[in-house]
């Protein structure tokens, strides 16, 4: 307990760092993921190819390698941004591939008859998607997106090793002050559990509100 109370501000800063890193990259990954999912089902071939490539490559890239490339590689192109922005970029792009796949399989769970009915009413592709397919896909997508976002929160720990203030990185500061290393990690673990449990609670609530039996 002493480890926690004595280093409260360090832990709190790290906790907030992880939270903000999570929130910003979650938004980026959701926006990018939905966009790429749209590309992948669109009638325009180059966009489909681009979407497929994006997903295939990013899903098979180790996140550490992506961090390595973004944080250490982009500065070689004379692009210098704060480490925080680099971390958000790496996390957001990586996660967007998984969000896209969840979205796509969500769209695939909507029965084809729905799309056909919408078209026979004279709706355009945009209308079919936004008024008929996506609202239904949304319901079956909530649970998988939730688990992807939980994984994102866990993955944000990697950013700590690339000079971003976040929860796991706090162990260095506290360790140097000579506190028990085991307890240091216990409190870090508790911090992560709070975040992941909170996300899963929010998504459970969402899921219950939008759930339909099919």
């Amino acid at each position, binding site marked *: 307990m002493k480890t926690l109370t004595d280093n409260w501000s360090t832990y709190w800063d790290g906790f907030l760092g992880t939270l903000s890193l999570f929130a910003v990259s979650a938004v980026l990954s959701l926006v990018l993921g939905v966009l790429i999912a749209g590309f992948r089902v669109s009638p325009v071939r180059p966009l489909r190819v681009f979407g497929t490539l994006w997903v295939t490559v990013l899903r098979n890239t180790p996140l550490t390698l992506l961090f390595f490339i973004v944080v250490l590689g982009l500065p070689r192109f004379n692009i210098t941004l704060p480490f925080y922005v680099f971390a958000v970029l790496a996390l957001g792009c990586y996660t967007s591939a998984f969000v896209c796949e969840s979205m796509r399989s969500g769209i695939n769970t909507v029965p084809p008859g729905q799309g056909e009915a919408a078209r026979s009413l004279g709706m355009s592709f945009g209308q079919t998607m936004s008024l008929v397919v996506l609202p239904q896909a949304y319901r079956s997508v909530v649970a998988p997106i939730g*688990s992807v976002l939980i994984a994102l929160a866990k993955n944000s720990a990697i950013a700590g090793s690339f000079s971003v203030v976040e929860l796991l990185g706090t162990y260095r500061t506290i360790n140097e002050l000579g506190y028990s290393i085991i307890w240091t*990690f216990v409190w870090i673990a508790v911090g992560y559990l709070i975040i992941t449990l909170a996300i899963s609670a929010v998504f459970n609530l969402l899921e219950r509100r939008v759930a339909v039996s099919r």
Partner: protein
Amino acid sequence: MTVESSALYDIPGPRALARHRTYGWMALLLIAALIGWVVYMLFHTHQFTAAKWEPFQYRGVQDLLLRGLGNTLRAFGWTVLFALPFGALFAAGRLSDHRVVRWFATLVVEFFRAMPLLVMIFFVFVALKVQPLWALVAGLVLYNGSVLAEVFRAGVLAVPKGQREAAYALGMRKTQVMTYVLVPQACRAMLPAIISQLVVALKDTSLGFLITYEEFLHAGKLIATNLDYDLPFIPVVMVIAPIYIGMCLLLSWLARWVERRSRRSPSMRGGAPVVKAGVAMGLPPAAQQ
């Protein structure tokens, strides 16, 4: 509702086709501009000068890279070796008839799945002062083993109820039902998911880089930060990234191939449904109970 069957939009007429072509060209132009910019930046920042690529001809550098790759594969091998039995053991624990065993296994599996992998690796490395290789392997085994336990459990539960009942009716005992009837069917149905999880493990061996394990990225960094070679960071990435991503892609394709093959196989008919392959980021396939 796939693009091929395409219930989402009408079969395009001449005007729609022309419009799609315009969009297509615009998209192509944008993508080409992006690629052009990257190539321009590569030349502009002198990434293709001989000095930056020369080190790759040196024997020592090649050895360093190969040793790094070997260390990555070694960590992956140990992980596979330990994670599969770990997963099997805890899946059996979660399916056990004894409440205490079930609770214990559930607790372990849920805890290690909820923890960030990197926290576990750092804990083993920093707090327990274990060598980098074994810290990495321990973390990977605990995490991937727990996910695999869920995969195995989902597989066993997905075998149709009749199979278990038939086996009991033949007078088989609990263990026999499990080993002769349920597990073989579950393993075949779950094989794509198991291989997909191994892709995750292979990707995560790169976390060893963060605890100074001398794996592939570490070797790359050593070369990239060498002043004598004119800091060849981008060339190093151009060598390392395709190899790393290629290995993961190969394993993913293996999973997809296995999935398609077992979908076609007549001996799978009537058994547990074959799960989809695909690199997972979140939860393993849900176990129905």
